[in-house]
């Protein structure tokens, strides 16, 4: 007596191959998704209460990064400018601009402006700005050409791979510490091929220690 129908084998094969395709497909999708700008938010513009233009303030007016992000050299956090900092200029300039209403309100009501973070890191990652600036990692390395961003977006993926790339081989990314806020480095690498290695030696930077887990995770 026949237990299985003649098509049973075909159906089983079909089922198994569908399962395999589904598994492979979802794996491919997941890895692609993780790398995609949808997951990393790279290039995505965040809505902000005030449409602040880094392009205008940096490229147009030539303001130094540290004018607003004042604690970048001394603290783990670069710091957001207090409303007072905005008002040093905007109590005189564009005093009626409707875009600046949230700033004036913040000042009047003594309530902070609620910015949406662009360069947020997960809570288990501890990044310290001061030591990176001190060793000569330029702002542009991670934050991109903010002088070309009318509205700020995330320029780099901020995945672990991105951080490790530099921690494994810091030399090509090192710049003179007093020039870290420079945006356009042009052909610096070609002109100063030795600088990275020299800086590594001068500061005793040991990449094998930089890739230790607790450098960033605690």
């Amino acid at each position: 007596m026949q237990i299985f129908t003649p098509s049973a084998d075909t159906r089983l094969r079909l089922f198994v191959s569908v399962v395999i395709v589904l598994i492979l497909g979802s794996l491919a999708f997941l890895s692609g998704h993780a790398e995609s700008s949808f997951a990393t938010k790279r290039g995505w513009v965040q809505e902000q209460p005030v449409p602040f233009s880094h392009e205008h303030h940096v490229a147009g007016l030539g303001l130094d990064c540290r004018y607003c992000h004042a604690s970048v050299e001394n603290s783990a956090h670069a710091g957001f400018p207090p409303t007072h900092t905005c008002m040093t200029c905007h109590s005189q300039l564009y005093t009626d601009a409707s875009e600046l209403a949230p700033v004036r309100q913040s000042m009047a009501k003594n309530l902070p402006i609620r910015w949406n973070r662009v360069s947020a890191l997960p809570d288990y990652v501890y990044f310290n700005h001061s030591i990176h600036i001190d060793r000569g990692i330029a702002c542009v390395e991670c934050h991109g050409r903010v002088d070309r961003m009318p509205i700020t977006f995330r320029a780099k993926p901020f995945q672990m791979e991105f951080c490790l790339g530099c921690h494994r081989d810091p030399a090509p990314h090192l710049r003179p510490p007093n020039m870290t806020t420079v945006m356009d480095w042009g052909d610096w690498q070609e002109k100063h091929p030795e600088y990275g290695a020299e800086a590594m030696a001068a500061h005793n930077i040991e990449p094998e220690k930089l890739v230790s887990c607790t450098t960033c995770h605690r």
Partner: protein
Amino acid sequence: MTGDKDLAMLKERLAGRRGRAFWRGLDDLSSTPEFRRFLTREFPALEPPPSGPSRREALKVMGASLALAGVAGCDGVPDERALPYVKAPEFALPGQARHYATSVTMGGFAQPVLGETHEGRPTKLEGNPHHPASRGATDAFTQAAILGLYDPDRSQTPRERGRPTDWQAFEAAAISAAAQAKAVDGEGFRILIGRSTSPTLARQLAAMRAAMPKARWHEFEPVDASGYEASRIAFGRPLEQHFRLDEAEATVCLDADILGPGPRQVLHARQWSARRAGFQNGVGECRLLVAEASPSLTGVTADRRLIAEPHRTEALAAAIGFALDAGGDGNIPLSTEETEFVRAAAAALLRRRGRSLFIVGPAQPASVQAIALRVNQRLGNIGRTVQFTEALAVLPSQEDSLAALTRDMAAGRVTTLAILGANPVYSAPADIPFAAALARVGTVVHAGLHYDETAAQAHWHAPLLHDLEMWSDGRAVDGHAGILQPLVRPFFGGRSPHRLLQILLGDLDTSGYEMVRETWRETASGGDFEEAWSAALLQGYVEDSAPAPLSPVPDLLENSSAPQRQAVAAGAPLTVEFRPDASVWDGRFANNAWLQELPRPLSKLVWDNVIQISPALAREQGLSDGDIAEIRLGGRTIDGPVSVVPGQAARTLTLTLGYGRTAAGQVQEKVGFDVYPLRTSGMAAFAEGASLHPTGASMKLATTQLHFAMEGFDFIRSVTPEQVTEGAASKQAEHPSLYTDYPQGSPNWGMSIDLDVCIGCNACVSACNAENNIPMVGKDQVAKGREMHWLRIDRYYEGRPDNPRHHFQPVPCMHCEQAPCEMGCPVNATTHSPDGLNQQIYNRCIGTRTCSSFCPYKVRRFNWFDLTGNDPPSVQAARNPDVTVRDRGVMEKCTYCVQRISEARIAAKLEDRSIADGEVLTACQQACPTDAIVFGDITDPASAVSRRKASPRDYSLLEEANTRPRTTYLARIEKEGK
């Protein structure tokens, strides 16, 4: 499981063992099948619940969660807001912690701290290294005080007869009551305060006395360890007694827990360890002889401990007094053991005349304490190992202060009563009908941190500010005055006690800040006040503010030897002893989960109090751990679970205060039983004539004693003094290993823990809780072995169960060079760093728990649940932002405070220098009052930790496992070393 053990059988078992036998508890020693099963399971937590899911059901659930795991992985980084300041405060540096010197009060005394704040949010209290009383050390209470600040159950609004009202109404009522009182010169106006040493409070008291000459002040402190009453008998006035344990080469304590929990623990522990360090280096002796009823930290640290029922202390003190020619009657009947102890104690004291110390504890009647004063005078110790100053308390209490107030209240002589920072309805002695008398008072105003038992019976209640929110002042135990400065604006808008008193004086405007400044402006002797004020705020204490020791010491009064104690009631079988609790003290910390879950130093019990009974009594009554028994004493009864305590006096029941509260908050709901109903004013420390009656019921107690037990031997080692000086204890050569050696770059971190000075006080565990965001799990989970403390203090017994020797051993992660956990982890979530740390990476961990099963030291903890996500927002605000808050399903463990190493490393790199020795202090090391824990760079031969590890006493735990741990121990120094 315990009580019916046959002592003879246990002794036989011990006799059969070879080598040095340690046991963790009575269950261990008796090796019942139940205990064996318990021990062989590496984690007791793994036991399936009796009615739990079957394997099939579990697999089904697992399948579902696996399917969902991918979905959870799709979450990106959630959008976050960034809220900058509107106007940045001066010197504010976001991301950089700031420290302010201040104090928190404990039993009226200021405990000096440096408060760490992140963006204005206090997160950790460190000891103040500049303060002469603590030199940077703290105790477990001080470390947990930060959680008290964030306690969501704190009172948040004034109340009138229980109904929330506003401050205007409260102030109007207070002013009108005060005005009425002033009109009659304060007749019927009474104020009751908890103990305080605040000079500002003293100044306000004087002002109030001037304004209302007939008003009266009363002081009530449930646990009074001041000894004021004894000095009143001996010298005619209350004096503060200061011991100099660092000068005392021989100390004899009778019923005195000088190293135990309390305001003076840090000072005493620091002094004792200084003396011990001298002894270790061959300078002088460090003898400690203790007679006590229930094992205390002092008793188990002593090199000779006599078990003595509380009422025998008087005879012992008198015998020692007689032996040292300090008067008294030589005709005292003593047992053989007691005679031997007295002889040894007298000899030790006499041999070190002028450098010895005789202490009778504050639990004893004042007349017995006075014997100690006479002995010390006889030996020439006064002015050297014991000094006297004027009393530090604002109102050095008369013993009958509360009783007198209650009498007046009952007689209707009190029209207005203000209670500040005291909770007498809960903690008043049972023979003082305070609560009943309260009903006869016209207006009762209560001010406290919580809406507590007393507040519920008051007409008005006002929330007090926490010490970290207000301007105040207070004296540390060494007498130095310190300014309490706020670390943060008040969360709930309370008032400081100074403000409230000022309101009663009719002054609504003067701020606490101005009041405290005014006090110190008055006392400033010339010079620039502003400069002195800034200096005091900066260093945490006022220079030269400690009262000078009295010299010469006033003469002892002649009649001071008159015995005052009542004779022992005939036919009284048992003695009940009352002790403050090592976790909740007198009940004030009942709502602090960190303290509730802190294993008690000796019993390792959490979330409960017990009736401590001796193994002999347990056997006699057929009781074992957790059985509920009733105590009858003088017509009053209470019942609670018993715990069998090796080393407990046979006929003494020890009870701890502070449990069974009815109105302290959510944390302590249904926790423990109240023992105050047994405690009467004449017998606040112990009472004779009790009886114990088993009820037949029993309950589960949660202790951590048997959790995370290691397999092996020689956990505790000791050497003889001779071996130390000869350096004879040879270190074993390193065993060969199949694994590659880790590179020894500089710095490379290591730790050394000196078991010779560890007193098991828990300060390190409490500090670790605060620093590393350790979640609390509750009693049920602790009972399953799921407590999360990264640092545990193992307690071992040695010797006979009725009088064993105790050993403590703090066990953090060993940071093994050849770490088994690293070999076990399938996903490389635990790895080794170039600076010698065994790293645990939470975001990589998938929770297989392999590492934990591989760890021979059992120091890894697993998050079985999301233990942190549902915490109230205020508790979440207490967390250290430099340490990841762990999620469900990941393993965690001691990191050597890697966040502190990182901070120091970055600071050093910014200045292009190397990290100095002592720059990185782990939280446990920072808090330790005896310097038992030293941490540092082991590649630097000059570092403190390298010098420790070079000692002949240095040894590794489970050396035979060849894991090459970076945490090593220094052996105890004992007369009979092994």
